[in-house]
């Protein structure tokens, strides 16, 4: 049997990859993809906890399913914003989108 910690390590590394992408990339779509990675890392944790700690209760699976919803809603709105910004400002570079900065 695979130890629980292995899953947690993979999830932690995946989460950090996502954090790095969100911080280092300039392209808004790339940042959104990094956020998807982070959400997936969280989901791995939820499912691993469900499997190893309480397989007879359904909590972990239900939470993971709700994360799916939030991820989908977030992506939909995020991409709509990106497309809208691209159409009005002709860029998807996060550095240039500073309308709300000051």
């Amino acid at each position, binding site marked *: 049997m695979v130890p629980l910690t292995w899953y947690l390590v993979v999830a932690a590394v995946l989460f950090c990859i996502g954090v790095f992408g969100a911080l280092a990339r300039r392209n808004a*779509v790339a940042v959104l*993809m990094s956020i998807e990675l982070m959400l997936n890392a969280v989901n791995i944790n939820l499912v691993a906890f469900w499997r190893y700690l309480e397989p007879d209760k359904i909590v972990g699976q239900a939470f993971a399913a709700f994360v799916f919803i939030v991820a989908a809603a977030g992506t939909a709105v995020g991409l709509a914003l990106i497309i809208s910004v691209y159409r009005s400002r002709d860029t998807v570079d996060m550095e240039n989108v500073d309308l709300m900065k000051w």
Partner: protein
Amino acid sequence: MTTLQVMFILLGSITLAGGLYTVTARNLFHGALGLIVALAGVAALYALLEASFLAAAQVAIYIGAIAIMIIFAVMLTRGVMGAYPVKDLWSLAVSSIGTVLLLAVLLVTLFRFNWPQTTPAAVPADSIAQLGKALVDPNLYVLPFEVASVLLVAALIGSAYIARDKK
């Protein structure tokens, strides 16, 4: 080392490699394909955890819907064959140091905690039906479940409004 462990290491490294490629690829479309590989790897990890329903849902939702939307956005925002630079070296250094620090903190916490070492109980045969019942059970998730549908409708109305051509 058992077969399961070998499988886990294989799938875990595929997932992480896909993720790493996603955030480092210069070409955004290739990055999106890396994301798909990572998502498929996560689905395989779910299957390894015997969460069969979530594994299929991961493929159907993330790869079948969200990844397609992302690729649409890549193409709509002039992503065709374009190279996208990362930020300047200074902020690159800062973000990598920050990430490594975060990872160190996470791993240290993770290994200091005393996780139960026992072999987990078997997954009940009707776990999918259980999930279905829990979602409409007033004592469990019926409220978040109905709120989720409202959230989805709100997301659709909002994003359709934002993205629509305004004449």
